[in-house]
């Protein structure tokens, strides 16, 4: 596979995501970037719904309990939740 083919594949993948979305509606399901999360537990402390646990050094959000109040986003010192 040439470098150009790889670049093309990634570009097409990104375009498919953009085209497939109806927008501008945005999903409210939060995500944790595990490459940035340091497992400090501040999000777990702040969550009023008991919806976050730190497991193996990463925050894990329970999507059934999460009310999208975004307090975890506000306190995360690493910007790992969005």
């Amino acid at each position: 596979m040439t470098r150009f083919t790889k670049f093309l594949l990634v570009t097409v993948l990104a375009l498919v995501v953009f085209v497939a979305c109806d927008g501008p509606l945005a999903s409210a399901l939060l995500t944790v970037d595990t490459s940035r999360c340091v497992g400090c537990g501040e999000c777990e402390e702040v969550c009023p719904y008991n919806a976050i646990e730190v497991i193996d050094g990463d925050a894990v959000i329970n999507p059934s309990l999460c009310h999208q109040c975004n307090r975890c986003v506000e306190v995360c010192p690493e910007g790992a939740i969005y």
Partner: protein
Amino acid sequence: MKLFAILLLVGTVAFGINFEGYGQMNVVSDSINYGEGLHKWGQAGFRMEGSNWDVKLDVDRVSSGEGAVVPRFYRSHLDTQLEGRINFGGFTINPEIQITKHFDSTDVVLPLFLGEGYRNSALRPGLRLSYSLPGIFEISGRGLFWKKDVTALDSDNDTEWSEMTYGGDVLWHTPIGGYLAVAGISHQTKLETLDYDQNWSRVDVSAGYEPLHFPSNTFLTAEAEYSLYTGEDYTGASLPNRFTGRLRAVQNVARNVMFNITFSQAADFYEDETRFGPFQSAIRGQYKFGGWGNVPSSIVIGGQLTESAITTRLGELEGRISIYSGLSALVTGKLWYGPSSVVNTGGYRTREIIGGGLEFRMQNGLNTFVVYEREASTLSTNEVWGKIRGGLGFYPAQF
């Protein structure tokens, strides 16, 4: 105690056991309200390691007040986690237990708006089994169980809150420099007294490609992941399936200058429509330069933009500049824009943090630091306050 010390010494000498300990004590106070703003954090632990096993104990104690202009979220708790690991021929057995004791009964909103409760304590035993052929194939399975002591405020009854999660994953490193992975997780939340029983599960299918021969010291990873959800969110709506595409690049400009760039975009598939999922774009640059002894100097500058139902923007600067034999100057700076839970801020606020301090690391692992930070935040009026944090610790102490 004497018997324990003797057994530890005999074990260490006779069976070649490594024993390593660490400890850290931090104190933070700010000028918003000195009394309530005092935040104490202590952490200690040890690790014993044999030829094919290890045992680790971590104890974490946090104590802090709440209140003042900006709500503080730290409360008081004591976390104790004990973890063991036994390896034999590629197999690993990993039992663990975590005990959390909350002080001053921290409050929590119960599911289905069934009132409020108080968190008193939690017990979490778990077990992981895994097998790996390094660099080729990995498979693992895991189960965790939570028993949470949460008292309902209205009735003063125990909610009998329990949670259980189990799952597994298979990862194959392909010979052409990529990977294929399948992971699954199932989670149950149950509050017996309130008749609440909710399940959700997720299956992730992901593939990644890491070209092995990229020019000019560039390391690129492209990942695609599809997550299939079952279950409902707090409103009773079905959880959407999610597709995520990610690109990560590490560029070494010189031997001591490195850039890390990430980009990701998700799409969420609801029953009747497709929505944009979270978008993230970030860059971080690091410059390392000489220092005294084993303490190197480094400056990290980074920025991040995220978009989902909310927007965040982050710019950050971190520096450690070695001054003299273990003594370093610390510099921190952060500019952050994001959601606000403080009333009358219009849902968003900006924080500007700038600070500096000193750190001293000794050859035997002992370290101490003190940092002063000034923070300004756009609340109903622009508020400015100072924060001082300091700590003392050692890592690692070997026996």
